[in-house]
């Protein structure tokens, strides 16, 4: 577990970060620019120093009342926004910078990092011969060679164009599935968040306003994500079977089964699915003569107005929480209320991995 209670006073800005996050998985630090995301990462790395604070990562205390461990003695992997490779060294030199300073790195470990990020073809290049995506791969590998107790990624994709982003995302997916350390990932991109996050930490004006599992953060009405205009729900599913006649596949999730166009993923693969609130509609009785394939029974949990003409409805289906965005008129004619049992129709589903 990571326990953090840090106060940093900068010119015209104050960071007041108090939170605990689990020691596995990706926690996305999400917030508008200037909200203190980068300052938070820098404080965890010891690059910004506050007067008071407490920081514990795993079993190491990096900051407490009488103790401030300097950056070079913290086991952190920090990936800067623009990769920040040393230009006076080539790719190998950048990686050796860590290997020379870190004792007890085995060949196997180094090889595993190189394989994870496909470093071998780049090893003899100079840093100016790398594309933006390749630079980030080297920067991530360099950070991982320190055997960090926590990996900090500061908007690693923001300097890249869409093509480069798509090149590097699969590597981030494999970090996600293969690393056993907590990852703090700073971004203001909803796409990256919904694809990568296990947890979301929301930050606004230097304060943590919410922190928890991704779908809880997306669907809580007291937090801004459910009101952002493109509210979504995210949950995990598994490819169960395929229907070759119609070229469809069946995805099993806790609340039932989705039928979606077949995208050739092997049976048993785990996928993450995203449902947009505006693609969900509600009926009182189960429709049979409809084109919509994905219909589930659900219970209304809470309804809040969304603008003048719409309402946002949070529903649960066997423990899975989902949002639906309706007009206020429909909600009123259906007499929607808390605890009412309804059917939801999901018009479309996005598969994220």
């Amino acid at each position, binding site marked *: 577990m990571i326990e953090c209670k840090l106060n940093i006073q900068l010119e015209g800005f104050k960071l007041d970060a108090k939170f605990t996050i689990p020691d596995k998985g990706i926690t996305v630090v999400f917030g508008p620019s200037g909200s203190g995301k980068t300052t938070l990462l820098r404080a965890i*790395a010891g*690059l910004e120093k506050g007067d008071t604070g407490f920081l514990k990562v795993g079993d190491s205390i990096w900051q407490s009342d009488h103790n401030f461990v300097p*950056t*070079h003695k913290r086991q952190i992997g920090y990936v800067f926004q623009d990769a920040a490779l*040393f230009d*006076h060294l080539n790719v190998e030199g950048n990686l050796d910078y*860590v290997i020379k300073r870190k004792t007890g790195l085995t060949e196997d470990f180094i090889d595993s990092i190189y394989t994870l990020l496909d470093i071998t073809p780049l090893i003899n290049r100079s840093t100016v011969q790398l594309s933006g995506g390749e630079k980030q791969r080297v920067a991530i590998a360099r*950070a991982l060679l320190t055997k960090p107790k926590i990996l900090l990624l500061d908007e690693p994709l923001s300097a890249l164009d869409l093509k480069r982003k798509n090149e590097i995302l699969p590597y981030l997916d494999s970090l996600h599935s293969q690393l056993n350390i907590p990852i703090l990932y700073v971004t203001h991109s909803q796409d990256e968040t919904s694809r990568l996050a296990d947890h979301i930490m929301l930050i606004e004006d230097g304060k943590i306003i919410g922190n928890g599992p991704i779908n809880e953060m997306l669907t809580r009405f007291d937090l801004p994500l459910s009101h952002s205009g493109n509210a979504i729900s995210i949950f995990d599913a598994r490819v169960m079977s395929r229907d070759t006649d119609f070229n469809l596949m069946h995805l099993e999730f806790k609340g039932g089964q989705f039928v979606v166009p077949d995208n050739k993923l092997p049976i048993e693969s785990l996928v993450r699915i995203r449902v947009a609130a505006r693609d969900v509609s509600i009926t009182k009785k189960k429709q049979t003569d409809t084109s919509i394939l994905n219909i589930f029974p659900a219970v209304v949990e809470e309804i809040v107005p969304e603008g003048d003409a719409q309402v946002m409805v949070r529903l649960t289906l066997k423990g899975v929480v989902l949002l639906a965005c309706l007009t206020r008129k429909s909600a009123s004619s259906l007499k929607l209320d808390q605890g009412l049992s309804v059917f939801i129709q999901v018009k479309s589903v996005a598969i994220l991995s």
Partner: protein
Amino acid sequence: MLSELDVSAIIVTIKLAFVSTAILIAIGTPLAWWLSQTKFKFKVIFEAIIALPLILPPTVLGFYLLMTLGSNSPLARVLESFGGSSIAFTFSGLVVGSVIYSLPFVVQPLQNSFSSVKRQSMEVAATLGASKLDRFFTVAVPLSRSGFVTAGVLGFAHTVGEFGVVLMIGGNIPGETGVLSIAIYDHVEAMEYAQAHLLAGGLLVTSFVMLIFVYLFNRHFSIMRYKD
């Protein structure tokens, strides 16, 4: 051809330049690093003191050095009480004078280079486990390579070329403090133009070659100011 005196002047000059440059780099590096990193309000005062030799007549500097180092100075008395003696009119005295006189030519290019080392590069090194001193030598120094070349060559060349300070505190003792620039002056005084030509021409060519070297290494070379 070169007289015995000329040869000894060349040897003393080269020895002086090497010793002074080594000391200049050793003193100038931490000084320039401090100036490039500090947020100290009154750092301009230090910058101005270091830059003084750029505009002061060398005789002024030489005069004060003589007052400080000469045999009647308090410093000389302290030295004498420890069994030493005044360093005015000795090789050591020349070295002290040269170091002070050439300091801006070493500090400014170094400060200029150090200022352009991104703070982020140093922070990255820290996250990779490098201590303060380690990051200075493995990141700041290699990224400031051109600054070191400029500083070294300028410090060396400027020491070779000095006249006024040397005249005031050196005293032109053959084999000890007799340097090239004064040897040329002596030849001209004695109307030995052929020998003056030989030494002056040699210096001209050497200086030119050294400057070409500096410019090749550092295209943004400026002696008078560093860029923020």
